[in-house]
């Protein structure tokens, strides 16, 4: 049978784990970085800057589309103790995040090598339930899941989750294939808070989603490719991640809209992690910290429009806006003011968190309830 290498007990590494891991690690002048698409300016200005500053070459690949496939893809190699070809990856909190941690696939972080993080990061991130104390990960960005739509096809404004169930958009609605993303919207549409949901709630949500599917409303269940589907007119309205739509509009000149529905959206965090078998962990951690320099955090947020984990970046963006002119100026000012990038406390009130699964059994039960919606 397949032998998992992890322990079932959650996180908490041995005390000397950090020291043990980092002992004897040397810099090799290169780093392989796996990230999601639409998560950086295609010209990669920050990486160029990093290379110029440190001499470390970065190979950046947008190979992660969804967490399930990513975990399944790298699991055999990690379990065999082999390199997966990446030194750094961006993984979302959720089912697979826990699997990565529980399997012992993530290198424990040496915070002494993360001075910028220590200095500049929003302190609340150290309290996140999925990785308290940022033992294995530090945030790349956070983001919200809401609704995107094409106003050239849908003339009325979209405001509610119920719009995703509207028969008027039959065959033109996109949903996520990730079971948590999907399940969350099912629950929120029924007024249930996903973070506090029970198996009973799951079943109700599943029924709600099945209803949507069997009515032929759902065109398909998507991973990152929902953006493409929206662009091709395959879907008119879809579940969406906050920054993606902004970037799509910038790069392709489209005019799609993103909204957080009245009932609320979800908030999640995508995190830097170093796979335990990484070949160049020292260079990787250097790159991680680099993104916590305020200017770098600012330029990244300016382009991707996702929630920035460095509060000081807001001021930096305003400064950048002051230097710019015309359209650019307006755009930068908009970013600095955007609740999607720097949400206020009140904004968080509207957002729901992902459900954390205490046990494997609980997680398997969840999967078995929502999986058949996507597959069957």
């Amino acid at each position: 049978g397949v032998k998992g290498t992890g322990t079932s007990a959650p996180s908490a590494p041995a005390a000397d784990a950090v020291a043990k891991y980092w002992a004897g690690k040397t810099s090799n002048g290169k780093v392989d970085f796996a990230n999601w698409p639409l998560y950086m300016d295609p010209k990669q200005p920050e990486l160029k800057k990093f290379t110029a500053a440190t001499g470390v070459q970065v190979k950046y690949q947008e190979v992660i589309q969804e967490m399930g496939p990513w975990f399944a893809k790298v699991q055999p190699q990690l379990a065999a103790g082999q390199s997966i070809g990446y030194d750094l990856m961006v993984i979302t909190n959720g089912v697979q995040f826990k699997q990565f941690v529980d399997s012992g696939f993530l290198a424990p972080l040496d915070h002494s090598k993360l001075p910028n993080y220590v200095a500049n990061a929003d302190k609340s991130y150290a309290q996140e339930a999925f990785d308290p104390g940022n033992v294995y990960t530090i945030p790349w960005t956070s983001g919200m899941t809401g609704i995107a739509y094409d106003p050239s096809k849908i003339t009325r404004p979209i405001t509610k989750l119920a719009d995703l169930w509207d028969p008027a958009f039959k065959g033109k609605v996109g949903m996520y294939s990730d079971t948590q993303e999907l399940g969350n919207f099912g629950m929120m549409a029924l007024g249930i808070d996903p973070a506090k949901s029970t198996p009973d709630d799951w079943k109700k949500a599943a029924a709600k989603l099945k209803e949507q599917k069997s009515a032929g409303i759902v065109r398909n269940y998507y991973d990152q490719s929902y953006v493409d589907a929206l662009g091709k007119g395959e879907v008119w309205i879809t579940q969406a991640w906050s920054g993606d739509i902004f970037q799509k509009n910038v790069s392709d000149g489209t005019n799609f809209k993103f909204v957080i529905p009245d009932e609320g959206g979800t908030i999640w965090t995508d995190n830097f992690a170093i796979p335990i078998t990484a070949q160049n962990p020292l260079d990787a951690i250097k790159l991680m910290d680099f993104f916590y320099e305020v200017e770098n955090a600012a330029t990244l947020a300016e382009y991707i429009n996702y929630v920035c984990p460095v509060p000081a970046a807001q001021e930096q963006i305003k400064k950048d806006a002051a230097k710019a002119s015309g359209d650019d100026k307006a755009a930068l000012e908009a970013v600095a003011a955007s609740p999607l990038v720097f949400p206020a406390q009140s904004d968080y009130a509207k957002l729901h968190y992902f459900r954390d699964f205490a046990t494997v059994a609980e997680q398997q039960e969840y999967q078995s309830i929502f999986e058949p919606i996507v597959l069957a």
Partner: protein
Amino acid sequence: MSWSRRVLAPYLLVLPGGLWLLLFFVIPMVTMLSLSLQQGDIVNGYVFTGHWQTYVDAISNYRVQLVRSLIYGAITTILLIVIAFPVAYWIAFYGGRRKPTYLFLLLLPFFVSFVLRTISWRQILTDDGILLGSLKQIHLLPDNFHILGTPAAVIGGLVYNFLPFMVLPVYVALERIDPRVVEAARDLYSNPAAAFTKVILPLALPGVFAGVLMTFVPASSDYVNSAVLGSPETTMIGQVIQSQFLVSSNYPMASALSFTLMAVLLFGVFSYARVLGTEDVMKVAAR
């Protein structure tokens, strides 16, 4: 050559290849069978418990997809026969010296990667694309009309992708027909229709059978066409299996589904091959 070496020769020749097939085909199958009866999870590992329940769950959860796949496979195969037969017939009987050229033309598209061809279809058929988009612009089609995502698109893709595997064996069978046998039928008072149904068709049947074998299995177990051209209503069992393996990392369920699919298909194939003889089928398959 000494006597003993003469006896050993076939075994020595077969050994490396046979070992390879044993290690990387037979043993994996057995491993998969065992895995399908194990319990556990990807983090903590699996242990063999003879857990038949997985099969019960697999079939009860994904019965629809399994049946759908078989139906799509069957429809695809039938369409393939109908579409491929006249083509193979024309090349075999009217192709003359150009036969190889025509066959080559038929195979041309298949130099392009399977995935790429399918994606190309997706681009051609996409909702606001070159084909439908233009028709919508001149209001010949309603705005939310689409082909992608429908069973028609998936089956169309399957038919497209497997066409040569039907044309070739049928062609081979037709090509082997001595034209004088057809003339003999005409000589014996058959009009063209009778010559076709009484002589050509029965003689081409082995080719059709071989074609069925070579298209039904891959079409039924395909997941690329449905993934690229389909929608939730067209999900095929291949997608479920691929997703259990490569999304959910639920290996026992995935193995149980694989085994169920394989059992269903191989049962069909073997009973079919029994009627025909594997030799014949393999011969045609070799073309």
